[in-house]
Structures are given as structure tokens and as C-alpha cells.
């Protein structure tokens, strides 16, 4: 939780201990990852109650199935996969299967929207408070379709590889790539509207 514990955090040693039955080691793993898992769950489900359920289910399942964790991926990647599956189930349940089929083909070609091409003001991170920044970024992610925001979260926030993301979501590698591109461009577009350097807008007075 605190930066000091992060510095000494040794995932594989803790997983090893937890697998041998050390509850304290598992507690440390939960402490270390709970905020990230909660954020992921919240972004995918976009619902506080569902996110809480996902958080619980993910760690309870991980604890239960620790013996099944082979160690051929990182523990974190493994728990992310469990959480994503739980979150997608929630999403499907809430919205009905048809609206959130993650293996439906999505358009990748034509971009008809006029792109916002403008340089950003310097260091927007410093101009906004942490809460404001959080609000702006969350709001932008929330406007993405579930297909896109899930891929964006896994690839760019949780830093899973393209292959791991494809595997987790049960979609093809080209689908991951095209959705990531669309998600990144859409977010860039939204943030540019927010962070564009105001002085350069010569038509602002019109």
C-alpha cells in the first residue's frame, strides 16, 4: 500500500509462501493489488456495486485456486484475468448478452470523424488537481464502448501483452490491435479537447 512496502515487494516469493498456506503472504498480495483490481473492475463494469463484487470474487477465487496457479505467468496477470472474466460476466448480466459480445467484429477502417489536431498545454498534470485529473481521465474512458475500454485497460493500464489480452478476452490478436488503436485515438481526441493549448486557438473569438 505505501511506497515503502512497494520497494520491498517480491511477488514470486509471496506467491510461493501463499501457496504453501501462508495467509499473511496472501494478505500482502491483496494489499498490493486491490486498488488496481478495483480500478479495473470499475472501469469495465462502470458500476460501484459490480466493481465491489468483482474485487471480492477475484481475490476469493484466486485464494481458492492458488494451487492451480502454475507460475508460467505473473501472479498479477493471473489475477487480472480472473477479475476481467468476473467483470465481463457482470457486464453481460447487467446489459444483456447481445450488447456486449466481445468477439463481434468491429470496424477498423474508415475514420470519418474530423480529428482534433492541436498541441497540448504544457504539463496538464500540474495544472489540474489529482482529483480533477482523475475525473477527466475516467470520464474519457467511460465514453468508450466496452470492447474498446476493456482492451485499453488491459493493454495500456494493466500492461498485459497483446497475446495475453487476446487470450484473456477470447478475441484474435488483430482484434486486440485494432481495438487498442481505436481506443487510444478516441481518448487522445477527448483529452485534446480538454488539454489543447488555448492561446493557439486563433478562431476562439469567433
Amino acid at each position, binding site marked *: 500500500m505505501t511506497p515503502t512496502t512497494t520497494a520491498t515487494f517480491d511477488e514470486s516469493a509471496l506467491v510461493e509462501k501463499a501457496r504453501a498456506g501462508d495467509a499473511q503472504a496472501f494478505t500482502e498480495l491483496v494489499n498490493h493489488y486491490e486498488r488496481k483490481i478495483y480500478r479495473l473492475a470499475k472501469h469495465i463494469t462502470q458500476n460501484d456495486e459490480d466493481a465491489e463484487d468483482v474485487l471480492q470474487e477475484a481475490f476469493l477465487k484466486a485464494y481458492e485456486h492458488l494451487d492451480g496457479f502454475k507460475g508460467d505467468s505473473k501472479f498479477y496477470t493471473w489475477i487480472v484475468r480472473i477479475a476481467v472474466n468476473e467483470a465481463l460476466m457482470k457486464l453481460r448480466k447487467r446489459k444483456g448478452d447481445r450488447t456486449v459480445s466481445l468477439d463481434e467484429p468491429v470496424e477498423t477502417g474508415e475514420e470519418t470523424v474530423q480529428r482534433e*489536431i492541436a498541441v497540448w498545454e504544457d504539463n496538464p498534470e500540474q495544472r489540474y488537481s489529482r482529483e480533477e485529473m482523475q475525473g477527466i481521465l475516467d470520464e474519457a474512458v467511460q465514453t468508450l464502448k466496452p470492447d474498446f475500454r476493456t482492451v485499453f485497460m488491459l493493454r495500456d493500464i494493466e500492461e498485459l501483452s497483446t497475446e495475453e489480452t487476446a487470450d484473456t478476452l477470447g478475441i484474435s490478436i488483430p482484434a486486440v490491435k485494432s481495438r487498442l488503436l481505436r481506443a487510444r485515438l478516441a481518448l487522445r481526441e477527448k483529452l485534446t479537447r480538454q488539454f489543447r493549448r488555448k492561446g493557439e486557438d486563433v478562431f476562439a473569438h469567433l
Partner: protein
Amino acid sequence: MLTCKQFLQELNDYLDPSTDPATKCHLEKHVSECPNCFVLVDTTKKTLQVYKGLEPQTIPESVKARLWKALEKKMAARKAQA
């Protein structure tokens, strides 16, 4: 010479550090000659930076409390089994 549209399709490869140097070089040429794509690349990089730079927020206390209650129950059950 790549068009902007073609470049856009390759944007992720351009941003990916593991892309091979030849492809990168080919894409770089377009960026160095096209001011719009230069800005597009720059602002996409910044978009990723701001997202990656933001640490996840603390979980609400009540949510955390319920998580731990559930976990402790599970852990106690396992201990009892052993």
C-alpha cells in the same frame, strides 16, 4: 510515401518500442514530414503518459472492510480444514 491514413493504421507500431527498426524508420519519415501526424503522435504519447502516470485511487473503506471480512472467512475455513 505513406499517406496520413496509412500512417494512422500503423500508429501503434510506431509507438511500440519492440517494432523493428526498418518499419520504425519508414514511419518516422512520415512523422518528420507531416506536421499533423507529428502532433497526433505527440498527443497520443501524452495521452498514454497521463493515464499511466495516475496511481489508482484508494478503495472506499466500506468496500475494503467487506473484502477483508470475506477473505478472513475463507482463510479461517481453510485453516479449520487443515
